[in-house]
Every structure is written in structure tokens, then in C-alpha cells.
């Protein structure tokens, strides 16, 4: 529990840092999404992960400005939290990078799809925005995974 709070605080600070200072042409990584993915991978209880995702999405949108539509983060985080918690310990051990990257891409595409209000049907520009955001998020995720030894932390938490 203590670790989750510690990483949540780190995520909030990093999210602030990236959204206010290190955005590239307006594109920023979604650090809170990474937090939900990594914490859900370590929690085998899908109900808890889904609720955690929903709550963090809800509270996150009250703390961080996320555009005009409210509720997208709750939707994205609860879906990603649910699926990430379904991945078993063994799979996380063998294909850790593969899973968190897949869930990051899934989350960002759900997020972008709703953020652009189904603009996808008339114009595919949203895909480009989502790809940039996914690339930046994965890049930052790689650094965080290596820097904070997240794989070992998650496997320890699972055991």
C-alpha cells in the first residue's frame, strides 16, 4: 500500500512536469495511465484494479485539466486496469515489456477516440495524434521501468 502511494505521488508530479514543461508540440505522455497499468499488473484482483482505474480517472480529471470532455480518463483507466489485472504472474515475468506497451497503446487509443468526439469517422488525423502520444508515453515508460526497476517491484508485489 505504501509503495502504491509513493508511486502515485511520483506519477502526479511527473504528469505535472510533462504536461506543463516537457510537452512536445502539445503532445505529452500519459503518466497516470502508466501508473494504472503497472499497479494493475501487480494486482490480481480485477474488481479492485477496475475500481482503482475508475477512481483515479475521476479524481485525476478533477485535479488535472484534461480538456472539455469529462469522464474519458475514468473510462480508459477502468478498461485498462481490468485487462491489465487479468495478466498472470507468469506472463508478466516473461513478457513484461510487451504487456505494458500493449496496454499503453490500448489506453491511448481509447482516450484519443473519445477525446476527438468520434472525429475518426470523418478524418483519420486523430490516429496521428494518438500515435505521437503513444510513442512519447512508451518512451517515458521505458525510462521509468529501467530507472525504478518496476518489473522486479511488480513481480515482488504479485508474490
Amino acid at each position, binding site marked *: 500500500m505504501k509503495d502504491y502511494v509513493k508511486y502515485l505521488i511520483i506519477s502526479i508530479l511527473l504528469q505535472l512536469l510533462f504536461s506543463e514543461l516537457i510537452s512536445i508540440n502539445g503532445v505529452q505522455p500519459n503518466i497516470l495511465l502508466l501508473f494504472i497499468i503497472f499497479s494493475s499488473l501487480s494486482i490480481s484482483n480485477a474488481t479492485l484494479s477496475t475500481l482503482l482505474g475508475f477512481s483515479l480517472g475521476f479524481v485525476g480529471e478533477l485535479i488535472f485539466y484534461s480538456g472539455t470532455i469529462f469522464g474519458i480518463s475514468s473510462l480508459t483507466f477502468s478498461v485498462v486496469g*481490468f485487462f491489465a489485472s487479468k495478466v498472470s504472474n507468469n506472463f508478466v515475468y516473461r513478457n513484461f515489456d510487451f504487456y505494458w506497451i500493449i496496454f499503453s497503446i490500448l489506453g491511448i487509443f481509447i*482516450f484519443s477516440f473519445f477525446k476527438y468526439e468520434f472525429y475518426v469517422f470523418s478524418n483519420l488525423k486523430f490516429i496521428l495524434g494518438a500515435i505521437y502520444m503513444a510513442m512519447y508515453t512508451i518512451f517515458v515508460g521505458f525510462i521509468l521501468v529501467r530507472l525504478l526497476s518496476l518489473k522486479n517491484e511488480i513481480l515482488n508485489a504479485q508474490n
Partner: protein
Amino acid sequence: MLNSFKFLKNYKDNLTLAICILLSFLLISQSNKEFFNNFRLKSLDFFSFLYSPFNWIDNQSFLIKRLEVLSQENLKLNLELNLLKNQDSENARLRDFVQLKEKVSIDFIGADILSRGFSSNLSSVLVDRGSIDGVKVNFPVMSSKGIIGKVISVSDNASEVQLISDVNFRMSVKILPDEVEGILRWVNDDYCEVFEVKRTSEVKIQDIVLSSNLSPFFPEDLPVGQVIGIYDSTDKTSKILRIKLFSDLTRINQVFIGLKNK
């Protein structure tokens, strides 16, 4: 009863996900309601102290460069101002002569950008001026170079600004010198399109684009951008103009809110 309990136990995870998805959709569908907007803005207002240190660093790091640019702009504008003062007095005399209605002038207040939003692609931003400062919904928002958007919701100390780069943003504009009218929409980066331009109208590359008096929210003659391309529409009944905005939407830190809409 027992079966219901068993069902709930077996499908607890899926049911939780379904409820969370339903609640999220409910929130998304209610996003535009005034109550939700006010609640969200009040909460963002309350937590705005979190952004302050980051905004301060951001402002400091660009301060010297910005000063240099502002000094150059100031010199250029001073020269232009002297010229315009002469033309203005002449214009006022002529308008009085033909008894035209006096043009309305607008006051602007400066505002810092509180947040560009997390995971946003710059379709809206949060600024640190609200109803206490006299800001109201639909007031125009400019950078030092031109229009960048309009206010879409207001709390006591903060306002949400819809940027030109929002895919739903539309604005009535005119192209000088012939005052050809059209409707502006964003394309990508700092580029926009003006559509519904009469095919017979005379428009040239580098013509200046200003807000039109047909716009329901924007006062006329506010600078928007410059024409960089002219094309025929697919049905050949009108022209489409490619516009480069005067403002760089990715580099705005301060904005100016016009304290009056049309």
C-alpha cells in the same frame, strides 16, 4: 436468491467493469451540462496551486528570450503606430463625414495559462482569469499576434479557452483588401482553411485574414492569419484558402482576453 449471489460472485469482475463503463459514459454524456462544467472548473480552480511552480519555471526559462522578442516587436510597433495615428485621425474625420457608426473598442486583460491539460492535443487550455476579473463565456482570446480562441466556461478564478485547433471550432473571417467572407476551421499545427469563399472573389497569397463582422462572438478586425494557398473546392463552386495563423498555438504562455464579445 442464492443463485443471484452466486452469479454476482462469479461475474463480480465483469459486472464492476460494466458499471464503471456505464458510469463513465454517463459522465461523458453529461460533460456539457452547466452543473458538471462548474463543478469541474471549481475543482480545477482549487487545485491550480499545483501548477504554479511549474508555470513559474516555464515563465522564467523563456523570460530573457521573450524580452528580446518583445523589445524588437515594440520598436516595430512604435513605428507602425505613428503611421496609424495619422491614418486614424483621417479615418475618423471621413467616417464622421459620411455619418458611419462609431466602431466599438475592446479592453483586454492578460492571463497566464494554468494548464494545457494532460494528454491534450491543445484543443483547449485553462487560464487564470475568471468571472471575478469580468470574464464571461464567448469572450475572444488572443495572443500578442492574433486570435487563438474563445472562452467556453468560467469559474471565479479560472476560465476554459477553446482554441482554434479544436476540431469543432468555426469562425467567420474576412480576407483583406476586398473583405471577402469565409468560414475558418483548423487543419493542423498552425494551419487553417477558410471555406465557403465565393469562387469569383479576388484573393491573393499573403492577403491578411481578420475576424469578420458576421462572427457572432468575435469583434471585427482582429488579426487571424495570412493566406498561403488558394484551391478550388471539390465541387468547383467555391474556393478554399489555406491560412497560416499569426499565433503559434504550441508556444503560448500568456493570452489576452477581450472583455467584451460582439
